[in-house]
């Protein structure tokens, strides 16, 4: 294809749009990681076969897109142009979808989404409560684009912002625009992006670098991954604009090797963009050069820290360096380096395209724009949600997330990944933005949000996260390496019933030392799970230490299972599943549970329909 310039790009977009009939139905199937977990590739193959078999190529199009966000309900199929939303689609449903919905225009009731709380059925994607409360500026295009086809992105005004930046704006104007939009780093710390760019731009070095940090390592968080998989061009475009503004010609994408689909898609995207002259030498005939290289990362959590990431690209051990000097002045190979997270880069084209004023209207006073959260844990609608900053936790968890499954009570939500804090029910009306989350002892982090129900033990949660951090600490500085280990040991003892009086105070003392004296962000935030759980759930700690009891019934050493004599009707349902034959009893008579044999696996509790198994 001919390399495009400014007019060429517009012509290309028009020709793509002319080729496409907006009224022609298009079956889009989510090909994101969540849906792959539900074997969406089989559905994709089935749709392909069915179209082939019935020879419907002229009547219907098919597109495999990136993540739609509603991962709980995968595999997701949306039929354009009406946006009919089908969820949990199986291979057997494909023939019916094509014969009914495509050919006859009928809706298949059983594939529609039903709100578990109200029982209402929804036909169109935009009506589903999970989607209609969101503001999907960055993430919305994921469901419309085939990430391996650049035409889809260009058809949606893709690379328009790059054109605008290269031909109608000076680098200073771009930085000013980004600064005015109030964009802050989406990777965790929330440093103003425009300011960061300005510092790197002002550095007096000929060679500079920009890096896209896609080393998302939080357990349960996958928004950067999904964005990279589903809409890689938005990140590339953002990086190209950033490179032009900062005045650099080389960029790196640091991406985990555990993200094979993201690696593949971003590789294809770079190749396609280079073929069209949207990346590489002489971009859009403007005289500006910018190449992007992919750096496959070995998957260390600490490499989310920018200085550790830089060491890793340089081929050194993945340890962080003391800051200052900050990477903006002395980064990769000692050259000024600007590092931004995937989501931050993806925000840039929107800001340039729609203008800073439009963007700064969304959000709160100090936190502008939207943020993608990965809503996981004990919540009905697991998935990726993009909401304006300042939305309350209640709205996110209950309105979008659909509340807690099985009618249980909400207990806490952990934001910001393993090193974030647990926010209790009393603070559920907290608006989500950088400042507010920090005030309550948690953080925005990269946007993980783990919901916990009443059956969660907060001591156990703190122990779990510290265990993760203990494994992921690089071990360079003493407080992080030794302190996290010591805290985890104390928490393990408390969970075993070996906690002693004074343990809580000791934990707090260690936690503050680790927080204040650690070398990098990993250690400085590692205490958050401990400090917040002590702050908001101190009674639970005391119950473990003083009364040797786990109120949530989680810590195995502190609980015992027994049978409620009044409720047990001797149905025998629990007898067979018990792996150690600890439950015995004749039919229709009271069963008994042998404490010696019981391994506290909880199978009987799950099986019993009459709530006759008691956890003490």
């Amino acid at each position, binding site marked *: 294809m001919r390399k495009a310039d400014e007019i060429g790009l517009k012509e290309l977009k028009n020709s793509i749009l002319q080729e496409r009939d907006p009224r022609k139905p298009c079956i889009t199937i989510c090909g994101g990681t969540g849906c792959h977990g539900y074997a969406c590739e089989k559905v994709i193959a089935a749709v392909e076969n069915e179209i082939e078999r019935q020879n419907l190529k002229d009547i219907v199009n098919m597109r495999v897109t990136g993540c739609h966000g509603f991962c709980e309900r995968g595999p997701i199929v949306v039929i354009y142009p009406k946006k009919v939303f089908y969820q949990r689609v199986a291979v057997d449903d494909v023939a019916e979808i094509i014969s009914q919905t495509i050919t006859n225009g009928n809706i298949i009731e059983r594939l529609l989404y039903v709100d578990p709380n109200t029982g209402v059925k929804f036909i169109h994607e935009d009506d589903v409560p999970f989607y209609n409360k969101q503001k999907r500026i960055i993430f919305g295009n994921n469901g419309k684009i085939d990430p391996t086809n650049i035409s889809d992105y260009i058809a949606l005004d893709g690379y328009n912002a790059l054109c605008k930046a290269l031909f109608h704006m000076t680098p200073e104007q771009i930085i000013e625009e980004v600064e005015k939009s109030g964009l802050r780093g989406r990777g965790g710390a929330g440093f103003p992006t425009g300011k960061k760019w300005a510092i790197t731009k002002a550095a007096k070095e000929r060679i500079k670098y920009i890096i896209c940090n896609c080393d998302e390592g939080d357990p349960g968080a996958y928004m950067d991954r999904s964005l990279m998989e589903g809409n890689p061009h938005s990140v590339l475009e953002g990086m190209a604009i950033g490179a032009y503004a900062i005045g650099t010609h080389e960029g790196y994408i640091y991406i985990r090797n555990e993200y094979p689909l993201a690696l593949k898609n971003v590789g294809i995207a770079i190749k396609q963009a280079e073929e069209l002259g949207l990346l590489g030498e002489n971009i859009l005939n403007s005289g500006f050069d910018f190449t992007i290289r992919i750096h496959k990362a070995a998957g*260390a959590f600490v490499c989310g820290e920018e200085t550790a990431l830089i060491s890793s690209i340089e081929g050194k051990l*993945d340890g962080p360096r003391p800051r200052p000097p900050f990477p903006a002045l002395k980064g990769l190979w000692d050259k000024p380096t600007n590092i931004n997270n995937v989501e931050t880069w993806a925000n840039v084209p929107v800001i340039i395209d729609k203008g800073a004023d439009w963007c700064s209207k969304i959000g709160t006073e100090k936190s502008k724009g939207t943020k993608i959260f990965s809503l996981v844990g004990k919540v009905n609608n697991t998935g990726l949600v993009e909401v304006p900053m300042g939305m309350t936790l209640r709205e996110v968890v209950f309105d979008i997330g659909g509340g807690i499954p099985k009618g249980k009570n909400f207990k806490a939500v952990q934001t910001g990944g393993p090193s974030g804090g647990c926010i209790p029910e009393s603070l559920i009306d907290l608006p989500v933005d950088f400042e507010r989350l920090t005030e309550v002892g948690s953080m925005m982090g990269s946007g993980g949000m783990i919901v916990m129900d009443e059956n969660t033990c907060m001591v156990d949660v703190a122990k779990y996260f510290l265990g993760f951090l203990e494994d992921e600490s690089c*071990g360079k500085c003493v407080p992080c*390496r*030794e302190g996290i280990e010591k805290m985890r040991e104390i928490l393990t003892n408390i969970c075993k019933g070996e906690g002693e009086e004074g343990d809580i105070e000791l934990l707090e*003392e260690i936690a503050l*030392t680790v927080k*204040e*004296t650690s070398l990098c962000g990993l250690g400085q935030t590692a205490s958050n799970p401990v400090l917040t759980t002590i702050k908001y759930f101190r009674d639970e700690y005391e119950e473990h230490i003083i009364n040797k009891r786990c109120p949530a019934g989680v810590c195995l050493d502190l609980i015992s299972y027994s049978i409620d004599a009044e409720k047990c009707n001797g149905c025998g349902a629990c007898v067979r599943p018990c792996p150690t034959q600890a439950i015995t009893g004749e039919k229709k008579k009271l069963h008994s549970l042998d404490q010696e044999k019981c391994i506290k696996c909880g199978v009987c509790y799950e099986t019993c329909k009459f709530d006759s198994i008691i956890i003490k």
Partner: protein
Amino acid sequence: MITLSIDNQEVTVKEGTTILEASEKLGIEILKLCYLEGLPPYGACRLCVVEIIKEKGNQIVAACSFPVEKGMKVITNSDRVLKRRRMIIEFLLARCPDVQAVKDLAKKMGIKKSRFKPKNDDCILCGLCVRVCDEIAGIGAIGFVDRGKKLKVDTPFHLASNVCIGCGACSYVCPTGSIEMEFDAAKRFRESLGCEHKCRYALMGLVSYKVCSNNYECWRCKIDQRIRDTLKTHPIFAAKEIKTEQVKQYFSFLKKIQE
């Protein structure tokens, strides 16, 4: 030049100086384990933490790596700093209860016993050996292996190194005595004569390398002894300085051309 105050004493230093260097100028002692003059700051032991007074709330930073700022107010021995420092020493004491250097530090700070379970390790992972080998000797025979609590100093794959020149700098800088020189190492080097193990001075271009007349026993080498005696430090540090001087001389003609 930048003027700042450390423990209410004013000091003026060059831009780019660290807090630690500035406080040394005032004669204020700050505890440290992983810092060594001549090596870039590493910031691993965190013993050198000090408090910077700020309006928004005081900040705790590592003095060894934090550069001075104009009008900065630093306190090296506030209650908060001492509390944190004590905890770090307790961590180290639990890790290495039998190491004299750590015991001395603990005594200095008035800590009798660590509240944590002892681990009986003898390495505090300050990284001095690794950095000296890599950055001063330029060899890189040892490095860090694994991460987190499993982190340790080792040769690649725990094999006898075939690049080690046996200079002993790692052992010289080790504050805990965790690395000891093997005295039969010299014998090993002799056996592998002609392959990778070379005299450090030969490697640095200070003596021509053929066969060592001292059987690779450096303590019998006149050059080695002379450098040790005159410079009162490990030869590797001295040799490094001499070498850079020589390099400067070699390249001085370039400057003349430029001028």
